[in-house]
């Protein structure tokens, strides 16, 4: 599991990670499935895969069944380099407003970056909006943020992005 080097060495669990695909069309659907698992896994990531059709596959601690026609997607997920982490060490603690230093201390996130500007300062404030989805990059778990109203940073990914043809 070199892929999850930083997490598996520091994560609470050392369980094996396996790939699974249920053909979820969106990350929200995949997140929903992951978050409904009982018992909760210690690590779960989503992966955008193109084959056999564009969808969201999952890598997760524990073993789950994948339909034969989606097996290649499950395999792609477990060997994927850009996992988007849904559950990881400390993910449940990343709520409310935290400093960057606190995020790094209480979770498996190794770097907090500001989109287009490089690393955030330890003292910068992150308003987690109770939705934190860092991504693995070169084996490191990185949370990309953007500046937001009130002088805080917010995670790049928002829980409810504007849909394609929003009723705005």
């Amino acid at each position, binding site marked *: 599991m070199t892929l999850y080097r930083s997490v598996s060495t520091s994560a609470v669990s050392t369980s094996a990670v396996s790939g699974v695909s249920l053909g979820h*069309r*969106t*990350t929200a659907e995949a997140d929903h499935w992951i978050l409904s698992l009982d018992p909760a896994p210690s690590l779960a990531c989503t992966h*955008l*895969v*193109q084959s056999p*059709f*564009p*969808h*969201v596959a999952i890598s997760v601690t524990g073993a789950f069944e994948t339909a034969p026609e989606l097996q290649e997607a499950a395999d792609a997920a477990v060997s994927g380099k850009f996992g988007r982490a849904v559950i990881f060490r400390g993910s449940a603690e990343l709520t409310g407003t935290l400093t960057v230093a606190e995020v790094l201390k209480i979770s498996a996130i190794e770097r907090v970056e500001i*989109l*287009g*500007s490089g690393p955030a300062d330890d003292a910068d404030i992150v308003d987690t909006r109770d939705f934190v989805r860092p991504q693995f990059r070169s084996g490191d778990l990185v949370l*990309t943020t*953007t*500046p*937001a*109203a*009130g002088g805080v940073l*917010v995670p*790049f*990914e*928002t829980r409810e*992005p*504007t849909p*394609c*043809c*929003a*009723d*705005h």
Partner: protein
Amino acid sequence: MGHGHDHDHDHTHESAGGDVSPALDLSIPDSELSPSDVSRRGFLRGAGLLGAGAAASVLAVPSAAQAAGLPHSHGPVGGGSDKGGFRWLAGDHHIHTQYSSDAQYRVIDQARHGRAFGLDWVVITDHGSVAHAKIGVEKVNPDIRKTREEYKDLLTFQGLEWNIPAAEHATVFVTPSRNEVEVLKQFENNYDGNLLPATNTTAQNEAAAIAGIKFLGSQVRARKIDGALFLANHPARRGIDSPHEIRNWRDADPSVAVGFEGAPGHQAAGIPAPNGRGGARGYYDNNPSAASFPGYPLESYRTWGGFDWMTATVGGLWDSLLAEGKAWWITVNSDSHVNYLDQSDRGPDSNFDVNGKYNDPVYTGKTLTTAGDFWPGFYGRTNVGATSFGYKAVMDGLRAGRVWVDHGRLIKGLDARVRTSGDRRPFTGTPLGGVHQVRRGTSTELTLEIDLQDVPNWAQFVPVLKRVDVIVGTITGPVKDRDTFQAPDTKVVKSFEINAGAKKASLTFSLGRLDKPFYVRVRGTDGKRTQPGLLGATVDPFGPKLDVSGDADPWGDLWFYTNPIFVLPSGR
């Protein structure tokens, strides 16, 4: 083809829609053509189907490509050399009405606001959908015709917002004619992504997009309409317009697919709460999905100084197209659906699915502080250099790339030309979108005459231009990897500080003696929000800044962008 040359690449002539008539080859003078070819050339020229703007690549000028030592592209050649002054007509190619399921205004509501806010032309672009294809595309036409009658000094085009199969949305519009509805309806029914089988593969959908663009060109060649244009809308919003798709659209028919939005609409969406929506400028708040092009970085999903990442990044995707020699232009627009601070709502008892429209809007007295859009003309302008006031002239100017854009009326007017050094005659110089061809070794220069703003914009202040950047990139010819989205040789080569209080800025920048083919484009800003460009400070020291989520005052961050001018060796 009338020009002889050695090559080993395919001769498909796709860019000419399969038309290999000598009429297309401007290296053959009119005097050597058959009478029927002269007539055909005249028609094609009149239809805007000749010229660099209509070619897949400016390198389609064979002598230019050979002189530059680059393989030339095939397609209609020449042109793009209109000189002298133009009548600059401001417009908006992306406007929704009550015939869109997520909008509410009448055609005339949008048109008269656009006209009042200074526009000369507007395009009505309701969403392609089952209801629109069946009902709306026809029903909106009498409303548009009535608006044309009512406001003769406003050019009101009918178009639609195409769900490009496998990709984002695009403005598609045609010149007015008795066939305008028939062409648009047939196009929508056959090629709209929402009306195609859900079982289509990505490859099938990408092919359908290409076929749709070719269909539009075929309707012009069949003389059913005088012109049809395609502009890709909010291209980086969800990461689903891959670089190769954009290239494929252009190459499918370069007389139709001419560009994309340099900046999205919805520019009010980032105005901070409680006075505004407090969202993301342009509604650019998405993240990668399974349909996204995997190579796009997270930076591409947000706006930078209100502009789309593809355009805002110096040396980025747009520049990678220009560096290929692909004539590809940028625009801005309102994408107006529901407008900031308006006080109306959809008419009561509407049944959109049955009627193809919402009932006429009603005044409510409630101020829409959470609406994310501006009325057409209120904020963004696409300024087109036209030879006259008319529908075809606007389309021809857009196709030729004689276009500059601004937000918040940052400047009043702009005349940018590339000249052979020292030649200051008023009727010479190559305008935006054009190709300036000179002998290798000849000195050229960029001249900019900028009328600085001296009247207030629609936020009641007079914008002040602080800096003008000149951006230059070498033209290196077609790329091997059609998913390329960087142009490593493009950068800001000069920045001019503008003196406060001046009425006019007359700037000259020497482009040196011509060695390699290149292009030049220009950008300006009020200087209020900048940061080093995404490809580094050596490429763009004072680029546009990432817009702040929930706190992006559009009036406090103004930019203008021009389209490029190409400079090529003539080889003679």
